[in-house]
């Protein structure tokens, strides 16, 4: 059932792509590439730590939704390696354009988890200042953020800045026209973009084989740049490959498409009921590839994992979850008049008048 990347690995068609040479037929970093990449134990421990914290926050998101404190929660379990690995692979000066499920990227970019959660509480359409975190807002209209990232990357190129841009999306998003247009623009303008497909096998209830004709990674060749399918549950592979792709982009070598194979363990969102379209048996084989267990194993192999470390991370995760909850629940409801303030940078007088009338009607006392 589990697609093990098969024989026709995308790198076959790009023998000249040194990044493709970093992974084996299973999409895993080769021992040789791991040595060459020289990722320190501290970095790997940090990746583990972030994944573990995000998993705990994800659980807290589910709790909060069940308790009626969130309107919606979109679980990320299964995506930790792809999101943490990719986000941490980007330089601080790089930009990230996330899709709605990229919560772990958000956290990796330093957004306070409790503030990030206000989005799911229905308090705001955008919980952070993109310039502060070099992180675009969460985008719901599927696929539409992909050409934003390309436009931003073209801008970086025009500014002669060595900035790379990461954009996240699901495999369902690759069916949209915008995704294709963006890939083609990226190819034509040789834009410094790393496209990260978090292929979790499902778009709500639609399985990959009914969604994607061919393979996502193979599509890059048709746009004149390389694409690579990797094991998206191995954080070291994701980190190393995305870092190399971002370096490449920063050096003016153009776009790169990474298809990170992974799985969505939970429901699509808390509104979804996955029992209607898949069984536990479908999920089971993917559990064996769980990203946190695999990062643990990698650290153990290096002799860099201890019970103390595990406990410390668990404690930090617990603390972060509590703090997140506290911050979320104390976040103020926006003044309804704020909706008018946010429409324009330079609002026309007529809108300000409409706002004044609106506010006056809500609060009869406040009207002049």
């Amino acid at each position, binding site marked *: 059932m589990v697609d093990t990347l098969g024989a026709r690995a995308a790198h076959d068609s790009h023998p000249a792509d040194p990044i493709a040479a970093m992974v084996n037929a299973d999409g895993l970093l080769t021992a040789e590439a791991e040595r060459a990449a020289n990722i320190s134990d501290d970095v790997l421990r940090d990746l583990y730590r972030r994944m573990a914290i995000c998993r705990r926050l994800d659980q807290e998101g589910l709790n909060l939704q069940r308790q009626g404190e969130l*309107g*919606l929660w979109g679980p990320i379990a299964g995506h930790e390696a792809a999101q943490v690995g990719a986000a941490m692979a980007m330089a601080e000066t790089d930009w990230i354009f996330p899709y*709605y499920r990229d919560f772990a990227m958000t956290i990796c970019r330093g957004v306070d988890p409790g503030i990030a959660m206000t*989005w*799911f*509480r*229905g*308090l*705001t*359409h955008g919980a952070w200042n993109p310039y502060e975190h070099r992180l675009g807002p969460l985008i*719901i*209209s*599927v*696929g539409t953020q992909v050409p934003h990232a390309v436009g931003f990357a073209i801008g970086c190129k025009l500014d002669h800045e060595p900035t790379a841009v990461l954009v996240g999306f699901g495999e*369902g*998003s690759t*069916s*949209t*026209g*915008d995704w294709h247009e963006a890939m083609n623009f990226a190819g034509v303008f040789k834009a410094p973009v790393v496209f990260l497909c978090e292929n979790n096998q499902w*778009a*709500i*209830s*639609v399985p990959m084989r*009914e*969604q*994607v004709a061919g393979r996502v990674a193979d599509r890059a060749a048709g746009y004149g740049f390389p694409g690579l399918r990797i094991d998206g549950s191995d954080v070291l592979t994701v980190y190393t490959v995305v870092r190399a792709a971002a370096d490449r982009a920063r050096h003016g070598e153009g776009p790169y498409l990474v298809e990170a194979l992974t799985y969505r363990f939970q429901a699509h969102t808390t*509104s*979804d*009921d996955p029992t*209607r*379209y898949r069984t536990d048996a479908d999920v089971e084989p993917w559990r064996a590839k769980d990203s946190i267990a695999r990062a643990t194993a990698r650290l153990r192999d290096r002799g860099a994992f201890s019970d103390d470390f595990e406990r410390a991370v668990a404690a930090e995760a617990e603390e972060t979850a509590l703090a997140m909850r506290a911050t979320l629940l104390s976040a103020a*409801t*926006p003044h*309804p008049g704020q*909706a*008018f303030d*946010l*429409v324009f940078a330079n609002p026309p007088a007529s*809108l300000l008048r*409409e*706002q004044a009338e*609106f506010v006056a009607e*809500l609060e009869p006392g406040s009207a002049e």
Partner: protein
Amino acid sequence: MTTITMGKALNEALRDALRDDPRVLVYGEDVGRLGGVFRVTDGLRAEFGEERVFDTPLAESTIAAIAVGLAIKGFHPVAEMQFDAFSYPAFNQITSNLAKYHTRTQGACNMQAVIRIPYGGNIGAVEHHSESPETYYVHTAGLKVVTPSTPADAYGLLRAAIADPDPVIFLEPKARYWSRQDLDLPAPPLPLDRAQIVRPGTDGTIIAYGPTVQVALAAAEAAEAEGASLEVVDLRSLSPLDLDTLSASVRKTKRAVVVHEAPVFMGIGAEIAARLMHDLFDVLAAPVERVGSATVPYPPARVEKLFLPDADRVLEAVDRTRQY
């Protein structure tokens, strides 16, 4: 007679259409296995098979476009857009092709297709899931646009829409999916171009559709307690507008309030108010009032209710017409 929800009534309408007409196809994102995110297509794939009820890739433009191709081939496609704002990627196919293909082929190709779009707010959702896109479709010549407010209307309008040889944008008021009604099915199909007086009255007319009919009825009920008799008209058809029914009502009551969730600015209330005040200039006792959302992007869930019409805001508007 059973009590069923609007969602179920729509489900039954699809089921009966699939059963009665072998050319009917139902498709869209998640309509198959899942039965749609609102379960409107629940059980249909199991009953009619994967060839007649199928999931598609996530691509609204082509979901609309294959309706064109399938209609040329003599099928009667019923496509679902998952939420209001997700019909926008299909805008060009709907506007430039679905609406114009009959004209373009000199009448040779009928576009017997229905695009179902759950719309409207009040469900506490994140961005893009609560919009009222009717203006966009209503202004596009070549489309018929209808919306039900009750389970019975949902059934009757959807059956009629599927049977009609022309493209119909079928707007489903999603906050009303769980509303219930006692109903004998199959209910009769309804005309696609007629409004309905859902509550008679003499002192003013409230014109509503889809999600706001309930709001209008609540307002009329409250007004009755205060001695005012308000007529409520449910448009049912947004394009064309049934101006005969609207005019007759307002000619009688001399006052009108139009209520919708869409922003007032260029909402359907604009056309109705312009027509009524034009045609009944000497009859009206007061200008036509409009109640709708503000000129802002749909606000976050925690404040949405402040922007949506409620009975109070409707009654204030009625009062303005009565105290004019």
